[in-house]
């Protein structure tokens, strides 16, 4: 497949799940098994296609857009159907298809009440198109459509298959993120009219940047900041996340943590920074401060949690703080770190949510005190997996979590674009507090492991029949477990792919 001409491959991969969702909707509800299998086949084919795309991606030119499509779309408002993929998009795109595929496999055996696999899987496929499209759309209008497309299926996933407080959580998730994206849309419009080039193309606008007055840049960036920061989520916009995660079904949590949150940071890197470089530089110290508050604060909140899933949700706040710290550094290493952290967090936290879901299915509770320890005795393989992923999440070198965190701190010590002259002391403080955040992170994970894994199981579970890791779970989890190790040992798998693209991006920022 020639990456210069095979734009159709990307289009097919992108809309295959959408078509699949339609096909699933056509099947009669009574064909329960067939529906589940069909979803596996659809996501599997899509994943295979993406694997082929990845294989034929020209890594020597990863800074340039490949597999491009640029067709006229809504000519009245100059919106074009512009798709493409570079080194920044590729890992996220790949991750989306992998996670959805695994989720489809997982759903063949596990589906929370009230069942209805047809609706659930169709929504998941719809979600997939939305998520994947966000990462390859290079037209602001198209981007916005994919961005909003994601909300609806996730709203229903949480609202129908969620936990006891699902109504509250789903509405909160929907309204909060929608609230942010309105400001983002206003910023897009302001950019369109200020640039005055009758184009929504991200590439074209990036090349034109910087345009408009400093005031314009500041306000436009503020609008985007609200949209993206809520999605990330950055402190103090994070409160929808624990509720959504806690109530969402396992698959929803996995996709939410694995892909959805990444859309926010991707938006920052792809749109906000290159198009509004001056605004970005003005906001960078604020982003850095909020990010580090998020790191420390997320860790503190984790220490206070009694619910495993909620704990993992709050850990996301801290981890995404590291990602945002990388962005706040405004240099190549920082962007690299942010994007690596994105991927690593997607895999690790996605895996943690799988584990939390399975925990709930075994113990029928997620309260740490009720589980009471002894999991290493009761279900040893599961305990080992939990330890492994928790250790990866706390940023142990050799596993995926380390590179994003360390590189983010390393990048933040010498921020780019003139920030180092003005804010050297501030950034040093940020690095120190971020590093202290890693200790707190280690603290809550170890405490979790101690309370859940170690010791003897309490009496109520001693005679209970609890299954250790099942075949379907091995199948679903093994790719993620291997990826955690592989990315830890070979960070070049992501860093190398992104390198040229990030250099390219920094060119727009003038750094």
């Amino acid at each position, binding site marked *: 497949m020639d990456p210069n001409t095979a734009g159709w491959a990307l289009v097919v991969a992108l809309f295959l799940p959408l078509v699949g969702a339609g096909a699933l909707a056509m099947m009669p509800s009574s064909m329960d098994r067939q529906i589940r299998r069909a979803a596996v086949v659809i996501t599997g084919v899509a994943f295979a296609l993406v694997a082929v795309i990845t294989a034929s991606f020209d890594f020597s030119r990863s800074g340039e857009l490949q597999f491009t499509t640029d067709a006229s779309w809504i000519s009245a408002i100059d919106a074009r159907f512009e798709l493409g993929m570079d080194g920044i998009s590729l890992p996220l795109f790949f991750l989306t298809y992998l996670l959805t595929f695994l989720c489809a496999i997982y759903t063949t055996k596990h589906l929370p009440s009230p069942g209805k696999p047809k609706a659930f899987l169709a929504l998941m496929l719809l979600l997939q198109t939305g998520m994947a499209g966000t990462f390859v759309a290079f037209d602001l209008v198209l981007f916005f459509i994919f961005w909003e497309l994601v909300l609806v299926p996730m709203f229903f996933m949480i609202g129908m298959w969620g936990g006891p407080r699902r109504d509250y959580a789903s509405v909160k998730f929907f309204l909060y993120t929608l609230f942010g994206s309105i400001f983002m849309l206003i910023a897009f419009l302001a950019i369109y009219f200020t640039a005055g080039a009758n184009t929504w193309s991200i590439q074209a606008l990036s090349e034109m940047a910087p345009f408009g007055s400093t005031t314009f840049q500041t306000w436009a960036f503020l609008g985007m900041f609200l949209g993206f920061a809520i999605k990330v989520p950055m402190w103090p916009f994070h409160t929808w996340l624990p509720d959504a995660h806690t109530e969402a079904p396992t698959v929803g949590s996995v996709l939410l943590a694995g892909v959805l949150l990444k859309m926010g940071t991707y938006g920052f890197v792809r749109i906000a920074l290159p198009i509004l470089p001056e605004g970005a530089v003005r906001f960078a110290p604020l982003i850095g401060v909020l990010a580090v508050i998020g790191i420390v604060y997320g860790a503190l909140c984790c*220490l206070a949690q009694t619910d495993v899933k909620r704990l993992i949700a709050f850990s996301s706040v801290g981890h995404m703080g590291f990602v945002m710290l990388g962005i706040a550094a405004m240099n190549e290493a920082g962007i690299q770190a942010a994007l690596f952290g994105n991927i690593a967090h997607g895999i690790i936290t996605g895996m943690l949510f799988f584990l939390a879901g399975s925990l709930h299915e075994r113990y029928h509770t997620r309260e740490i005190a009720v589980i009471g320890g002894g999991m*290493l005795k009761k279900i040893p393989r599961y305990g080992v997996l939990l330890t492994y992923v928790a250790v990866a999440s706390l940023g142990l070198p050799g596993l995926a979590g380390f590179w994003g965190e360390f590189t983010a701190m390393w990048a933040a010590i010498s921020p780019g674009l003139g920030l180092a002259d003005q804010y050297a002391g501030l950034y040093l403080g940020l690095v120190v507090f971020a590093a202290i955040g890693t200790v707190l992170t280690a603290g809550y994970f170890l405490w979790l492991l101690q309370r859940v894994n*170690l010791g003897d199981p309490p009496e109520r579970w001693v005679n209970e029949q609890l299954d250790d890791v099942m075949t379907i779970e091995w199948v679903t989890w093994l790719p993620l477990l291997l990826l955690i190790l592989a990315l830890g040992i070979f960070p070049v798998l992501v860093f190398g792919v992104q390198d040229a693209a990030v250099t390219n991006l920094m060119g727009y920022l003038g750094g």
Partner: protein
Amino acid sequence: MESLLELAWVVTLLPLLSAAAIAAFGKQLPGKGSELGIAALAITWLLSIGIAWQTFSAGTPEPFERAFEWSPLGGGFIFELGMLVDGLTAMMFLLVTTVSLMVHIYSREYMKGEPRFTYFYAMLSLFTFSMLLLVIANNTLLAVVGWELVGLCSFLLIGFYWEDKSNQDAANKAFLTTKFGDVGLIVGVIVLSAGMFGTGTSTPFNIQETNAAAMAGELSTGTIVLGMLLIFLGCVSKSGQMPLHVWLPDAMAGPTPVSALIHAATMVTAGIFLLARLFPVLAQSATVMAVIAIVGVITLFFGGLLALVQDDLKKVLAYSTVSQLGYMIAAIGVGGYTASIFHLFTHGFFKALLFLGAGSLIHAVHSNNMSDMGGMRKPMPHTFWTFIIGSLALAGFPLTAGFFSKDEILIAGDLWAGQGFMTGNLVYWVGLAAAFVTTFYMARACFLVFAGENRSHHAPHESGPQMVAPLMLLAVLSIASGYLLSPFSSQEFNFENWTATPFVEDATYPFIDAEASGGGVLAAGGQSIMAAADGEFTILHGVPTWHFDLLAIVLVVFAAAVFLAYRFYGKGLPERDPTLNMGAATTVLVNKYGFDAFGYRYIVVPVRDTLAKWATWSSNVVIDGMVAGAGRATKNAAFATYRVLDQRVIDGGVNGAAFSAAWWSDRLKRIQSGDVQRYAGALVAGTIVLVLAIAAVR
């Protein structure tokens, strides 16, 4: 023989492979995986000996560096995977693989029948790999990777018996305390590498480049002071320095071989190793060196005092480790590069010996407490003599390895004092005082364990050959290793030439004023003070000569301490060994009793019962309390943050927005009364307003 150095990576990698192999199919093997670990370690040990010999025989070996790009980090910077093999690396290789191999062999018998035997071996191998990775790293980032991995292995092995809550707590405490120090290490490494950006290098973490840049004055003072102090914070926690030593005694919750390998010989020395690696950098700043020296001095003295009041044999050894690590740190702080790592080298052997000996005793009596032992000399003769040799070496008895290495440190302090630095005097005199303490508590331990009657409830018997053989080998090394740098060793091939890298040799102290100090040159370890040819202050080296004044003092200190210990803890002897007791009772007790009583009342009691207890108290209550208090406070802060700030304020704000919208709409909806006439009234009223507005405008 360039080829052997090329193979240095095999030394590091082989334990990793064996760890993976043990984890994968160790359970199916007859030896449950232990044979895999031992075989792999034996190969790496032989390789290490080869590498050590090659570098040793080269005099001062040129560093051998091989690196390749592993990953770009953005901004044109590169993370290298590389190895730096010089005398220091080779020395650490030799130490780590030797102790590790001994522990592997020893554990076959010691850990027999444990349910997680295979897991234990996998972890031992993994730990060995991590430690060797730290040692071989050619850049600080790779060293950080190794550093964190040894921390994880330490955590997993301390918590090996995870059924007990106290062991879990100990493991968590160890990991978190060292992790706290790692904040310093990581930020320090970052600060140093940021300082390297100015040099235009693409590999800012490279150790050799960092050293070169520091010596060339390309790093700013701020970078050096901040970076090295932060890195030193990492060393403080990892190497058990005050006040972050608190985890180390608790870490004795792990199996004894683990204590021997990790908490005596290897991991805890990682901090000293790292400081030695970056010695040319820290030598640029008087502040950094002074801080290091003072922390070392405090630790070596107060850490030693703590050992006086322990009943748990392993804790005695643990506190002695703290104290000995203090010596090494202090030596670095007074420019005693060679002295420090020489003590690291010898201490690794004799402390591993002591721990394994303690393990042998514990294995026999099923208790860690010395009050449950006594009279072990006869049933366990091999354990006895090896343990005594270890104790002598630790106490610095002349002609043992500990004697040579510890004297190097004292002399380094003396020389530093000669340059007008207070810290030199401190190291010298406090070091001597602590030598007394060391001797006293080791003698006490020996008497309590081996003399007197058997107080245990078991019939003790000597351990099997797999445990005794490592003891014997380590006993030999506990004496022999000292002769690598002694008045007997070769002027050309000795420990100092071996481990002094070219950077260390060329390193200068820019803060020493040439005029004021009279043109003297500091020796890194040996006491040969030579005039500098060009007035530069270069770290030189040479073989030590006899210092009979110091020897005399050391001997007196030793004798006094042993004698005192004997007076108090050898009391059970008369029934078992009447002649010795008689002589002592008649000649010493009668003549010197008043002095003894005085010494007991005014020296020993205050020191042992008050000062040491105070130190224990301060460690257990104040510092540990601070650690625990910090933990509690953090936890409380966490709950407060979550419940009040997060759930009420921030989430309250979010929900408040929604609720206020609902509240307002509830009020506003009443306008929609369904009363058409009111609508009509409103319509007309609105029209009036419009009319008036238009009229007003016109």
